[in-house]
């Protein structure tokens, strides 16, 4: 934990009318670590993600990337600076092929987007790279199918492949295994484990399955009603009364 944080949020807050979905959340994330963000439904986990990756503008507070304030930047600019995001609700390009879905991520990473006079099929290395990432999520043989034709589990895998293809410094997984069949889950968990093992990547993971959290996380952050209510070592956080109560669905606010 000696390295400088890659990502930090300081007093991050967003209000929707009178409702404060994320309230004054400060946290730092260091390379080589995997932080699980847990909390009951509606706790603000996905909203916190959206604030970090730029899908939503913060009402107050800051997002810092490598010490640089990126709060005013849009999602595309943050993605270019190394924030990679996979979505909870599958979020693909439905009428493009599986390969093209991933290729678009590789292409963004390679900075080819504004190249309008070359043939996309001439960028062989881009296509090969996309195929490599599809292979890693075991989707290589389905690459010419339309994304919308995939099963739910395969769509989730494609979502992960797109995130891998962005080759970000910060990986943000939002319930990556939700809705997957039991035999598909290990493929994704192994990938996340592998990313973590690289040592220089920062992983943020929103996950409901406690066994998954226990096996992967170095640290757990608990959000409840938009507040950060616990942050620390998995064993300690899991044992704390706050988490026990939050997960049993009882009023945490009273006990705080």
């Amino acid at each position: 934990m000696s390295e400088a944080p890659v990502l930090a949020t300081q007093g991050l807050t967003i209000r929707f009318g009178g409702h404060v979905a994320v309230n004054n959340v400060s946290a730092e994330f260091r390379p080589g670590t995997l932080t699980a963000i847990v909390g009951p439904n509606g706790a603000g986990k996905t909203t916190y993600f959206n604030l970090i990756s730029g899908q939503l503008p913060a009402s107050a507070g800051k997002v810092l990337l490598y010490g640089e304030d990126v709060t005013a930047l849009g999602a595309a600019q943050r993605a270019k600076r190394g924030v990679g995001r996979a979505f909870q609700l599958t979020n693909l390009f439905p009428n493009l092929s599986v390969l093209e879905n991933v290729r678009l991520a590789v292409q963004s990473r390679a900075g080819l987007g504004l190249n309008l006079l070359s043939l996309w099929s001439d960028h062989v290395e881009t296509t090969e790279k996309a195929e490599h990432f599809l292979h890693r999520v075991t989707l290589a043989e389905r690459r010419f199918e339309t994304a919308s034709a995939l099963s739910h589990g395969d769509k989730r895998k494609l979502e992960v492949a797109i995130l891998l293809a962005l080759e970000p410094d910060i990986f943000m997984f939002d319930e990556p295994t939700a809705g997957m069949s039991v035999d598909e889950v290990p493929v994704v968990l192994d990938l996340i484990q592998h990313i973590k093992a690289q040592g220089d990547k920062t992983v943020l993971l929103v996950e409901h399955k406690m066994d998954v959290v226990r096996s992967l996380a170095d640290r757990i952050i608990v959000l409840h009603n938009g507040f950060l209510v616990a942050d620390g070592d998995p064993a300690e956080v899991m044992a704390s009364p706050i988490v026990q109560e939050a997960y049993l669905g009882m009023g945490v606010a009273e006990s705080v």
Partner: protein
Amino acid sequence: MLHRLLSGDFPRSLWLSGALALLVLVLALAPFLFTGARAMNVAATICVFIVLVASYDLLLGYTGIVSFAHTMFYGIGAYGVGLALYSIGPTWGAMALGLGIALLLSLALALVIGLFSLRVKAIFYAMITLAVASAFAILASQLSDFTGGEDGRTFSVPEMLRPGFRLIEAEVFGTAINGKLITYYLLFFGALAIFLFLLRVVNSPFGRVLQAIRENDFRAEALGYRTVVYRTLANCLAAATATLAGALMALWLRYAGPQTTLSFTIMMDILLIVVIGGMGTLYGAMIGSALFILAQNYLQALMKQASDALTAVPVLANLLHPDRWLLWLGVFFVLSVYFFPTGIVGKLRALKR
């Protein structure tokens, strides 16, 4: 060779390939196949509309932008060339100057409209383009000292493009090699080059991003593509190509006026052709333009013949009266949207499977 020329985007249907080859062949040989001024007009209009509709498809079919300002850019091209030739004189220099100014104006307008309004929802963007285009059309008719108002401007073209000009004295296959023929081939090869350019753009990495934005702009943004930049660029490209189409049309007609370039009717025609041909397939612009322009020009004559032949049958003769041609064009459109929701090209491609 063909692969590079077509940017690897083949028609992917035997019938479609045949139809396209036939169309290109007929258009390429039109001056030698047809003699009448009417037929040549139709051929030239098809050439120009292929470019105009293809550039609109770049917006609507590939990027998912609904714009009603496309005829404005078309008009800027026509007026740019027309007014320059009218006020400076029939020289190539004047033509180039007019085209240059028109392109700059179009790009500037597309950029401003794009940056100001492509952030908003699609429906608001459509409304904004409608407002700007209407304002522009009114401006063109009000500034009558400059633009000729509702009458437009008739102008002379450089000598080489005039009907009186002879490149060679002898006739080739019974056709005089005159300025009109040269103008036609300027249109034909201009349209061909622009079409192939657009085909390259939609099959480039940039073109894939446009399709990604059409499919899911939120996700495209999350991948690191600043969608407003891409949309604005697509807007500028489409505007520039529509301007070129307008310039070509003006050279052919030797006239620039509100009815032939800025009118909302043309905007509707473009929309219809894109939908009939098949959105998101540039080949649809070719097939659609050819069918639509042919119907527009010959449906009436065809109906007159049918009506005359059926004078004995009371209701049918009346239904097929040439004055009802717009009704039939409408029926044709409704049926084609109903039976070919993916357009003619989509239908032909699906036949194979």
